[in-house]
């Protein structure tokens, strides 16, 4: 990938809009840059001799930070001892920290970061994990401050945040390593044992003298023992815990088969009678572990993406004491009644009441409502919401751990634990199956004991081996793994594999609005002109003013040729005011107008007004835009009952619902209302698919039978959802639904085959016609057929 379009920034790939071009020499040629930020980053990279980054990268970089020096100032907060205690491991001589790094897009970024930081004196070790977007850094504190490390990253265009793995993730990590070790051991040992076994197989036709044969048996025994004891341990543990719960699961039959086969083979080795099947034990454990590991890893990847929540809860707060002195403190140490100050653009660290100041607050991450909310003295604000304008003095109402964000998190966890366990066919089938097999084995054993006592044990073992539920236990995981891999290719990340079992039964689909069906970005849908104003001019003037604003609505006003407006100031809670050709120009809600031209402020008037001089010249209707393929998605799912639950106002919600043809709309829904709605549906026996994105959707996503977090969903939503849509193609949701149906058929086919095979082989084994090596071949063959059938899902 190199830059083919000369109108795009060479560094970040974004189009160069403002007409102003910046230049940087990269790889021996001057390259166009879109902004001073990108230019600075590119120059920093080149001057450090890291040009190769541009040669080998496969994705564009993030846009550079234009306000680099200001950003660097705010980083100083990370040098506080108290903050560092949270993330930094100090072993006396060195400190270690894990950083989440935003902006890593390909492997070249990892290399760039490592090279850049290794040049910095004081850094001892750095390891960048590209897929997890994280870096682990060891440094010497006396030589280098943490803020300087993060500053170094900023200078080459990456944003870093301290990171602390949450409990779930840490345990995933540990489990992953465990799996790898078990698989590695089983794999290496299996190779050895198979080698010896091939020798022994040929011994059947040729001749191996007895002493050699016995030696090979003992070596196989020796090599198999660690595999059975160590690699197979996961199965025994799971079998044991299911036994303690008073039921039998798949691992119970697997364990019996492994231990039974192993003990029988060991006995055969010691007593020189009967056959041995050490190689089958090894292969069985190896193959089964691989399928388990693949399933585990796809879940693990999802957890990596969703783990970082630090964006929502700021670390520090500016506390004001009685003498009006401001000190920076840790947000989680704030107590009820303390006073803090929150400046424009900052995130509220805790819940509180405004005691001084007014301005607009973006609460969309809590309520899902896309419009800003005006707050003044006496109003409540919530931790995690964003202060858009105005400076607030706040009295803390709730400590961080009691704040609304944390309450929602807890709600979600509760819903998660409530979640109905998907009935996995394999488990039910194998439960009956294993009970039947165990019963038959016991009866045959007793029968043979009366008839030919010396053969009884071997017949029993051969029944267990021949009917070993390998195929049965592979039936579900292989089909699921193939499906998950296929879904991954379509940008769908499946976190809980068992949802594929539930998906085909879904009869109700619930959509969130903002961010799910709509972009969550504003655009001008309609403009009304007053006093003979010219439409193009009006747009340019508005764009010129809004250039100075960071408010979400300001993105709606963009123009190639914005008018030059000077002396622009923010009028808190109202809009912007500036000077254009020595005339006062104002843009904002109705309250900013000097003379409202007879316009009466109404509750629902969300329009944006533009005034030039003394005259009102335009009123813009600003709307959220429906996503391109939202209509396609809704039409695809029309066979099910469709509902839209939105936190937004009635007008906005029903407009979107009507345009998409969603019959049932509920507006101004709080997270709790949404949750109750879904629980009511579930109580009536409906199976619910929820598609959402916001933090406010998190509990609902967790409660729904199947949930999908779409697009740029919040981390919290991703944590709760069963499936995460990584790209913005909504239409892929339909693919997930059809895939689920295919998987269910596949699993059924596998089951029928596995059970059919077992039913066929069982009478032969019971009658004693089955020699052990036949049982082994039959067992492997039935497994191979099942795996091959499942792999067809990948096509």
């Amino acid at each position, binding site marked *: 990938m190199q830059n083919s379009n000369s109108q795009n920034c060479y560094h970040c790939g974004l189009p160069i809009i403002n007409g102003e071009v910046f230049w940087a020499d990269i790889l021996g040629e001057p390259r166009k840059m879109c902004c001073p930020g990108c230019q600075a980053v590119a120059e920093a990279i080149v*001057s*450090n*001799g*890291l040009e*190769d980054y541009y040669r*080998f990268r496969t994705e564009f970089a993030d846009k550079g930070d234009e306000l680099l020096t200001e950003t660097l100032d705010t980083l100083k907060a990370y040098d506080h001892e108290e903050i560092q205690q949270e993330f930094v491991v100090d072993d006396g001589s060195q400190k270690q920290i894990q950083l989440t790094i935003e902006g890593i897009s390909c*492997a*070249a970024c*990892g*290399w760039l970061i490592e*090279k850049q930081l290794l*040049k910095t004196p004081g850094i001892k070790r750095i*390891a*960048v*994990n*590209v*897929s*997890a977007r994280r870096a682990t850094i060891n440094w010497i504190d006396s030589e280098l401050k943490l803020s300087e490390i993060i500053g170094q990253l900023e200078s080459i265009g990456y944003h870093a945040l301290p990171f602390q793995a949450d409990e779930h993730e840490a345990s995933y990590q540990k489990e992953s*390593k465990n799996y*790898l*070790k078990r698989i*590695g*051991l089983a794999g*290496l*040992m299996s*190779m*050895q044992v198979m080698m*010896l076994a091939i020798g022994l197989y040929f011994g059947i036709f040729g001749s191996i*003298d007895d002493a*050699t044969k016995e*030696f*090979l048996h003992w*070596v196989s025994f*020796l*090599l198999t023992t660690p595999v059975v004891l160590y690699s197979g341990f996961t199965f025994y543990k799971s079998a044991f815990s299911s036994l303690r719960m008073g039921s039998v699961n798949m691992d119970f039959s697997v364990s019996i088969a492994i231990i039974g086969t192993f003990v029988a083979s060991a006995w055969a080795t010691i007593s020189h009678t009967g056959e041995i099947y050490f190689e089958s034990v090894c292969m069985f454990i190896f193959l089964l572990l691989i399928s388990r590991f693949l399933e585990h890893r796809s879940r693990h990847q999802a957890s990596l993406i969703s783990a970082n929540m630090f964006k929502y809860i700021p670390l520090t707060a500016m506390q004001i004491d009685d003498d009006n002195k401001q000190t920076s403190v840790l947000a989680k140490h704030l107590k009820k009644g303390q006073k803090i100050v929150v400046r424009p653009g900052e995130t509220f660290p805790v819940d509180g009441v405004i005691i001084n100041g007014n301005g607009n607050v973006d609460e969309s991450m809590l309520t899902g409502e896309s419009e800003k909310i005006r707050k003044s003295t006496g109003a409540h604000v919530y931790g995690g919401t964003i202060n858009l304008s105005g400076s607030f003095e706040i009295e803390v109402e709730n400590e961080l751990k009691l704040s609304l964000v944390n309450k929602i998190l807890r709600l979600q966890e509760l819903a998660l634990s409530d979640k109905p366990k998907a009935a996995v066919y394999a488990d039910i089938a194998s439960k009956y199956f294993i009970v039947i097999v165990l019963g038959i084995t016991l009866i045959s054993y007793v029968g043979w004991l009366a008839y030919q006592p010396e053969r009884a044990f071997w017949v029993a073992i051969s029944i267990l081996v021949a009917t070993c539920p390998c195929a049965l236990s592979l039936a579900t995981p292989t089909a699921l793994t193939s499906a998950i891999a296929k879904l991954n290719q379509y940008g769908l990340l499946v976190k809980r594999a068992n949802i594929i079992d539930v998906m085909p039964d879904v009869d109700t689909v619930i959509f969130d609005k903002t961010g799910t069906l709509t972009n969550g970005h504003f655009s001008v849908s309609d403009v009304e002109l007053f006093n003979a104003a010219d439409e193009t001019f009006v747009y340019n003037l508005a764009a010129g003013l809004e250039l100075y604003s960071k408010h979400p609505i300001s993105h709606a006003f963009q123009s190639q040729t914005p008018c030059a407006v000077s002396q622009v100031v923010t009028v808190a809670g109202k809009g912007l005011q500036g000077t254009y050709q020595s005339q006062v120009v104002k843009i904002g809600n109705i309250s900013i107008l000097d003379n409202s031209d007879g316009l009466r402020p109404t509750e629902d008037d969300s329009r944006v007004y533009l005034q030039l001089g003394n005259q009102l010249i335009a009123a813009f209707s600003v709307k959220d835009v429906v996503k391109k393929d939202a209509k396609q998605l809704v039409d695809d799912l029309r066979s099910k009952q469709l509902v839209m639950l939105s936190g937004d106002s009635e007008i906005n919600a029903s407009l979107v619902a009507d345009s998409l043809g969603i019959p049932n709309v509920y507006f101004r829904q709080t997270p709790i209302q949404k949750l109750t709605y879904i629980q009511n549906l579930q109580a009536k026996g409906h199976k619910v698919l929820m598609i959402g994105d916001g933090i406010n959707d998190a509990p609902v996503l967790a409660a729904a039978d199947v949930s999908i977090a779409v697009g740029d969903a919040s981390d919290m939503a991703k944590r709760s959802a069963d499936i995460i849509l990584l790209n913005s193609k909504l239409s892929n949701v339909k693919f997930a639904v059809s895939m689920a149906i295919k998987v269910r058929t596949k699993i059924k086919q596998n089951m029928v085959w596995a059970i059919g095979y077992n039913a066929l082989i069982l009478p032969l084994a019971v009658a004693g016609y089955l020699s052990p090596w036949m049982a082994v071949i039959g067992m492997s063959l039935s497994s191979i057929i099942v795996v091959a059938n499942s792999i067809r899902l990948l096509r």
Partner: protein
Amino acid sequence: MSIIYVLIPIAIVLVLLAIGIFFWAVKSNQFEDLERQGYNILFDDDVDKKVQVKKPKTNDK
């Protein structure tokens, strides 16, 4: 045939060694990011040379 009484134990020792190395590799997180390590071969050596030759200034700081 008696040679196998020597060769097989040697094979076992080698396998144990391999398992040891594998466990060490897992323990030191070498399997965490497989994507990135593949790219390392594209970069390292020649770049280091270039930095030394072309950019003595940055080292002086």
